[in-house]
């Protein structure tokens, strides 16, 4: 009986990563705020954008920067004027999101650890 080897491992892990990536992309797209949306949002600018520049762009869009997240260019922002999300995009944001599914999770053999990590690094508007 022929047992599989490294090719199977490579194929399996590549497929899993691809499926997870597609699922994540789909979720992010589904969570994308419409142009007219207001309130507390995640504003995602290109990662190479300097923090000062991001700060200015948020102000220019008529919003308030609340805090940066651990992902470069991604800020929690707030704006009450209608069309806030659209104005963020006009200022160069890749998108504005109601929530983000992206966050680091490390599961060793002791899951309680994750709770603390999540609290420290959660990206939530």
């Amino acid at each position, binding site marked *: 009986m022929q047992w599989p080897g490294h090719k199977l491992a490579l194929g399996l*892990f590549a497929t899993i990563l691809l499926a997870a990536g597609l699922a994540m992309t789909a979720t992010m797209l589904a969570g994308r705020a419409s142009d007219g949306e207001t309130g507390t949002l995640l504003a995602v600018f290109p990662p190479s954008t300097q923090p000062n520049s991001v700060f200015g762009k948020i102000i220019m869009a008529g919003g308030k920067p609340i805090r940066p997240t651990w992902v470069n260019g991604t800020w929690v922002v707030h704006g009450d004027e209608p069309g806030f999300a659209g104005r963020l995009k006009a200022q160069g944001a890749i998108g504005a999101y109601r929530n983000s599914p992206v966050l*680091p999770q490390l599961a060793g053999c002791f899951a309680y650890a994750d709770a603390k990590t999540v609290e420290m690094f959660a990206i939530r508007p």
Partner: protein
Amino acid sequence: MSSQAAAPAPQPAFNPTAVIVCGCLIALIAFGVRSTMGLFNQPITEANGWGRETFGLAMALQNLIWGAAQPFAGAFADKFGAYRVIIAGAAIYAVGTALMVTADTGAMMYLSGGLLMGLGIAMTSFSIIMAAFGRLVPPEKRSWAFGIATAASSMGQFVFAPLGQAFIASFGWQTALYLLAGSILFMWLLVMPLRAAKGGVARDETELDMTIAEALSRAIRHPSFVLLTLGFFVCGFQVAFITVHFPPLLIEQGITPQLAAWSIAIVGIFNVVGSYTSGIVGAKYSRRWSLTLLYLTRSVVMTAFFMLPITPLTVVLFSATMGLLWLSTVPLTMGLVTVICGTRYMAMLYGIVFFSHQVGSFLGVWLGGRLYDQYGTYDVVWWLGVALGLFAAIMHWPIKESRAPSFAVPEPAKA
């Protein structure tokens, strides 16, 4: 007890690729769902008006129950077959996950998120999958199979962390838990290829036929098994301590929260590579020496990190190296259990070793916080981790990587 040689190896009823893929997917789901629990901390705590302690205690219970139940789950897998244990375990795991929705008291949370989930994880985790692989896969492929099962478990967090977050964001935490419970039940479809991995059938002719009680009694009296168990305690201590306390330690040392978070992600990515590679290493080289070297390297890396100035470069290098050494102990340790005690009761005996790991994990998390509170620095517990790494290396050094005489069929007396 009889001294007759074991029956011939079972043949998988399914294609070998299906056996490996389905086993890996079960391990991925089992490890993945539990890795999302941190996401539910805030919503469940807020919804019930609890302090952080209730949820945290439920999760601590879950981990300890997982460790304590693993030998029993393993014994059932050895006796009745891994697939039966996984079917029952998936049901318990799913019920525990779903019941968290209705848990409005601490007691209900301890029952659902603690007891039931802990039991379910013990019955479906990579320990059971590796035992199934150990019986189905030929000896020359066994270590590789242990490696891929561990790596698949590690990948579970990459799949389920965003999935859990997405479920919560899109449907709310209650529905997210129901969806995760449904994901667990998907194991029922995946378990069939493991069916030929039935207990009661040993792989090779050097193993004695004996009862579970006899196997346990012989194992705990065998020095190499005891040393292996003591050594695995250290793995749990170091991994759990770093997972919980490393990011705050970095921030305290002036590293940005961004890099501190990335350090955890780097550990996770390199962990998959390390787990798989250690399976390959275990097939080619001495597992005992590999583990000795691995724990020694952990101590050296931890020492170097603390002695050198902490910079973004050293943080990345440390995280990558520790990631490679993270769960790479698992395939090697399981491999040694198989070599020393055979495959007949490997699930139960690995469960004993794993319980020691979970006790170490608990102490790593708890002592890390306790000693920090007492001394106002992580120095003491960090050096304790270094010392324990050396202790583990010393424990693995004298292990005899061969079948224990009490588990081997005696050779015919020479004329």
